[in-house]
């Protein structure tokens, strides 16, 4: 039962990642692309967590935490760059 739920959740997240990628390529403005990247990394962290449940090993949380940290920093850097034309003033 749990295996089936894990597979279904992975399929749903895969569709979500594809939709995000579509917005990443399509996005009419740079801010749309940043938003798509932001969603993409959060969903990737969720995929890694579900993969950890699938394998049955708890070592994958560190990877998800790292992705969340780096993704937030990169989103902030990109948005700051659009706002000011510079990242560190």
């Amino acid at each position, binding site marked *: *039962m749990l295996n089936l*739920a894990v597979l279904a959740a992975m399929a749903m*997240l895969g569709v979500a990642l594809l939709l995000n990628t579509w917005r990443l390529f399509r996005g009419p403005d740079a801010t749309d692309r940043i938003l798509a990247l932001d969603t993409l990394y959060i969903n990737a962290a969720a995929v890694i967590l579900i993969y950890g449940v699938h394998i049955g090993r708890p070592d994958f949380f560190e990877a998800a*935490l790292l992705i969340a940290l780096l993704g937030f920093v990169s989103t902030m850097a990109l948005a700051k760059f659009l706002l000011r034309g510079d990242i560190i003033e």
Partner: protein
Amino acid sequence: MITTIVDLFASLFLLLGAGFALIGSIGLVRLPDLFTRLHGPTKATTLGVGGVLLGSILYFSLRQGLSLHEVLVTIFLFLTAPVSAHLIARAALQRHCKSLAQVPEAGEEKRSNDENP
């Protein structure tokens, strides 16, 4: 017996989280302009990751003793999602992105200044 019940709840939370992530991405694709598009992902994916984390907390707590370090990811995402959404919205306001609603005062002033230098 208890394993079956906890597994049922864990799979329920996993499916709930994945469903919320999917809804957020559908919103990201379907909504008409950037300021409405911000709503889908920033709300639904934090709830989605929250559901997935709750499911994995249940799964690993049953098998390898209480494991709460997944809560770190949840707390971090709950703290940072509004900040990044705020920054993206500010960048969009400054770039005069297409908006369905009336753009607030500061953006309007800047636009009129740009048009009549």
